[in-house]
């Protein structure tokens, strides 16, 4: 029967008692490594957390993780956990795992460690309590590191996808030799404007484009900021030897912009896309022939 006075409250053991206890726990976990590790693998298998891993991979992985956790407990340093977290996160995101799946393995290990402490100290509640006081913060810290690593990796992937979507949503099309069309759809903020400009300039170089048609029919709000972005793009394209025609700028909007002081004289603007392409062709030296049949056009290279 335990005397009341021997019951301890959950306080962190301090100083020498603490480090002695840490050593004791480390020794315990090292001694029980094979037993506990196997228990852990069995439980993970039962939960289906090891799908897709070969037995060899499981063996190696589980040893590494187990030892890394014990090292954190022993040294109080979590570099090993951080390194492992990054690796795990990259791999997990690659395989499309959920957060639960990714850290499910560690959660199971935490339980396995915890249970083994219960088993060891079951006859000594005070000692068990002290052991848990030492063990639990370490376990929680490792779990936080891994969970955070996973989240950061996911955010990185999302950013990459957003970037890819942005690129896809603004394709620069080569219509014919020397002629590029850049249809812009949606709002243009400074970041997007910059990305569009860089994309366009690179396309001018790789396609050796002489004329670019920028179609802004799909841009809902053309204010002075957007107009200035356009002006910059036009000028940058010109520095690379390409002429720019802007289509989709209605006369009304153009008038408004001029009224508020935007200098549109540098922009060659045409209302509709077809008209812009015709102009572009003329600039490039193609002859534009409109035949009798309504709506039919053909473009033939001018014969020198």
């Amino acid at each position: 029967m335990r005397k009341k006075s021997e019951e301890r409250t959950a306080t962190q053991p301090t100083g020498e008692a603490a480090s002695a206890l840490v050593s004791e726990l480390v020794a315990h976990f090292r001694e029980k490594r094979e037993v506990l590790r196997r228990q852990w693998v069995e439980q993970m298998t039962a939960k289906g957390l090891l799908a897709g891993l070969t037995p060899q991979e499981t063996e190696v992985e589980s040893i590494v993780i187990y030892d890394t956790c014990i090292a954190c407990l022993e040294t109080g340093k979590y570099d090993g956990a951080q390194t492992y977290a990054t690796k795990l996160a990259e791999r997990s995101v690659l395989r499309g795992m959920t957060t639960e799946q990714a850290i499910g393995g560690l959660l199971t290990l935490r339980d396995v460690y915890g249970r083994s402490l219960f088993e060891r100290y079951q006859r000594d509640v005070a000692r068990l309590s002290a052991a848990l006081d030492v063990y639990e913060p370490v376990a929680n810290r490792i779990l936080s590191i891994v969970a955070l690593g996973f989240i950061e990796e996911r955010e990185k992937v999302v950013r990459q996808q957003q970037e890819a979507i942005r690129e896809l949503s603004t394709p620069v099309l080569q219509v014919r030799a020397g002629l590029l069309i850049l249809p812009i759809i949606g709002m243009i903020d400074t970041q997007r404007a910059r990305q569009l400009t860089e994309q366009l300039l690179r396309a001018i170089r790789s396609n050796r484009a002489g004329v670019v048609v920028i179609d802004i029919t799909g841009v809902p709000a053309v204010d002075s900021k957007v107009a200035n972005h356009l002006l910059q793009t036009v000028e940058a394209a010109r520095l690379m030897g390409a002429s720019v025609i802007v289509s989709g700028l209605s006369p009304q909007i153009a008038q408004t912009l001029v009224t508020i002081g935007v200098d549109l004289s540098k922009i060659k603007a045409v209302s509709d896309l077809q008209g812009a392409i015709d102009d572009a062709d003329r600039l490039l030296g193609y002859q534009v022939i409109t035949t009798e049949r309504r709506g039919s056009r053909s473009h033939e290279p001018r014969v020198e």
Partner: protein
Amino acid sequence: MEVPILKHGPYLIASVQAALSDAALLELRDELVEQVGKFRARGVVLDVTVLDVMDSFTTRTLRAIAHMIRLRGAETVVVGIGPEVAFAMVQLGLTLEGVETALDLEGGLGVLEQRAKGGGDRGR
């Protein structure tokens, strides 16, 4: 002379080989103007592909070069401004107004030839 100047029919081609100090750029200016006069060149292609930075001084000087060469009856085409440089220039508000530009050497000669044929302003 750091920048070799070659004669190509009625035109001169100057290709910048390395980053130019201010003094070297001014030297290039004087050299080009002299050569245009000497060979009665009808045009100059100035290739700045190698320049990774075009700052305010470089831009000013290129405009001055084009201006002085035009006074001698010849046209200048600056070629080789890459995407990053072009972008940086417009961010800085630098323009090469009054100077023809083209993508590369071939493009530059094309511009000069079109002008010679009476192609006139390329509508820019």
